[in-house]
């Protein structure tokens, strides 16, 4: 057997399986709650209640949503390309789930690492897997056979290319300070000071690019509903549409998780070791709230403004940040 990646730490297979099941279960319990959280929070931002009729505090709302979406008619437009049309949502879900694996929830405790996997190429893995999502968007939009979908998909692809670069460069500073690509090592390196302090520029660029990566409000070009109806998912209905929606939230979790691990000290926090995952979750949730807050507040950028922001401001800034960090790291 050829090892895909060299792991720092070897565990029994059954532990890995249990771990993956637990992570999967926890995340899929959080995701629906996030949708209802967003709807309720945006409601509060807008002086209203939001869903509150289904279950206590409307907490069963996502259950109803999923049930309804599952019960919808499976439909494909007459001029869609069948295989690719189905493949689109599958790919996005796949990439979202795969990216969850590297988020570190805690240190190695009692011989078990509280994370899915700890690959030495951690960040690269995140980029590699995250980029697959855009294949889903592109294929889904293109194969729908609708002009709105096509425009949305094209915007999505261009947006990915523009922002992936700045995102990578933004993380590079933290990576250089930690001296490792592994997320666990990066968290360990933040024992004295969280990287948000020395790497504030990197953090901001990463979050900005994260908004663009997840197609959230100031940068929701691919699904700008005032212009392109629903962008790439115009023709999707039922659970295929639901999975696009779900992946959006999954990507928010992933981006928040990476940001928390890279810049906010990951699981670090006062208290005994078993609180580590709680700390991680708290930090992630804080970032998720930021996402929701911004969605309720900011208008959308124009497509060309988005591009020039990415290429003319974020990219030079991120490069400069990397250079300065490199010099400082070498000097100290």
């Amino acid at each position, binding site marked *: 057997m050829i090892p895909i990646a060299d792991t720092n730490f070897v565990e029994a297979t059954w532990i890995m399986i249990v771990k993956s099941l637990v992570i999967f279960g926890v995340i899929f319990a959080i995701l629906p709650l996030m949708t209802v959280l967003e709807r309720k929070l945006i409601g509060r931002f*807008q002086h209203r209640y939001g869903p509150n009729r289904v279950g206590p505090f409307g907490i069963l709302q996502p259950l109803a949503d999923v049930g309804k979406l599952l019960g919808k008619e499976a439909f494909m437009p007459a001029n869609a390309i069948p295989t690719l049309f189905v493949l689109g949502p599958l790919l996005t879900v796949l990439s979202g789930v795969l990216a969850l694996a590297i988020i570190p929830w805690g240190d190695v405790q009692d011989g078990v690492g509280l994370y899915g996997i700890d690959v030495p190429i951690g960040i690269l893995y995140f980029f590699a897997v995250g980029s697959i999502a855009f294949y889903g968007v592109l294929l889904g939009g293109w194969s729908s056979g609708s002009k709105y979908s096509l425009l949305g998909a094209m915007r999505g692809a261009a947006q990915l290319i523009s922002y992936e670069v700045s995102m990578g460069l933004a993380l590079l500073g933290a990576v250089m300070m930690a001296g490792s690509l592994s997320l666990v090592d990066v968290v360990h390196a933040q024992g004295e000071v969280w990287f948000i302090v020395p790497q504030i520029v990197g953090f901001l660029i990463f979050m900005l690019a994260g908004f663009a990566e997840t197609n959230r409000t100031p940068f929701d070009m691919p699904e700008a509903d005032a212009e392109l109806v629903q962008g790439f998912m115009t023709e999707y209905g039922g659970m295929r549409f639901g999975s696009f929606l779900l992946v959006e939230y999954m990507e928010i979790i992933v981006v928040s998780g990476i940001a928390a691990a890279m810049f906010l000290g990951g699981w670090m926090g006062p208290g005994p070791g078993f609180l580590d995952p709680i700390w991680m979750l708290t930090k992630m949730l804080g970032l998720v709230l930021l996402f929701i807050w911004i969605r309720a507040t*900011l208008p959308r*950028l*124009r497509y060309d403004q988005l591009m020039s922001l990415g290429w003319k401001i974020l990219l030079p800034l991120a490069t400069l940040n990397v250079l300065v960090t490199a010099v400082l790291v070498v000097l100290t």
Partner: protein
Amino acid sequence: MADGLSSPLSAPPAVETEVMTINIGPHHPATHGVLRLVVDLEGEVVRDLKPVIGYVHTGIEKSCEDKSYWKVIPFVERMDYVSFFFQMEAFCGAVERLVDLEIPPRAKYLRMIFLELNRIHSHLVWLGTTALDLGAISMLWYCFRERERILDLFEMATGQRMHTRYFQVGGVIEDIPVGFEEKLRKFIADMPVRVGQYEALLDRNEVFLQRTKGTGIVPRERLLELGVTGPLLRAAGEPWDMRKTFDYLAYPEMDFKIPVGTVGDNYDRYRVRLAEIVESVRIVEQSLDALPEGPFIADDRKYVLPPRSELPTSMESLIHHFKLVTEGYRVAPGEVYYAIESPRGELGCFVLADGSAKPARVHFRDPSFINLQAFKDMAVDTYVADMIVSLGMLDPILGGVDR
């Protein structure tokens, strides 16, 4: 981006590109109703567009010919359904000119109060929906919060939220109720604060400024050629407001300013409308202060229903009431064009009387309909996203466009 403004979108790109014709509407989230736009896109740039209208054509003008004069009023309200008081005023004013009826001063002031409240209401609906098009979703809720207060006032005085049928030929149908003034004063005290809050949310937002500044510019001369009036024209620097130039109601006695823009871009349109809200609040305040005592409807029994209290005692009143309700009043042949300043520009009403109790022709010169012709000039050779913003800033009400 500064370079985004100066980039020559009108020049053909270096690479060979294909024009894609895309059909926006009649159902589209950003067309404010059922406008259909056939747009030629070159990449993201609009190269040509053609508005296709008529999807809510209701035949109101034809229906009006079939109703007696006082029954026409509810029909005309439903044309431009966010500025219903203005349609009523245009029609009632035209008929008053036809029958040469002077309305009492209290009715004039009451009409002004409701017209200006309606103007605020219309601008609030515009602000909310346009901000929604821009992606600033919460503005809709903030604007509609204030709109509900206006509708409460309408409901208090007239019994209906929308389409109130409050204005009558000869005045208004009822006096304002007790407590209305107090509620209105509270509202006009709050409204400028709220406008400040909207500004805080939008005007200090770099994204909003980037999206609106320098987009959708049409020069003043071209706007005048196209017959555009209202805030669009004023944003281009032409101080043309019929409340100032023509003498109707008691506007000459009011002290208010005409907000004027400089460049004529979408940002100016936004600023002009926000400033108009503040000016309208001032007009409401002044007319409330100066509200004269006296009758709220003219005392001409030929055209105006007698007061309810007279019916049991006066035979003559009963006869008048019966005649007016069953047949209506006859109007001597003639034609009148009466125009007022609606939230969207010149709202003209042409009434042709042929001597019978029904109008022979009612035509509305709806500002949305005329202004929509400028949309092509605003949107061609801009990005499709700017086209959506320009459409929002144009503020067409499709009920008014199609009538």
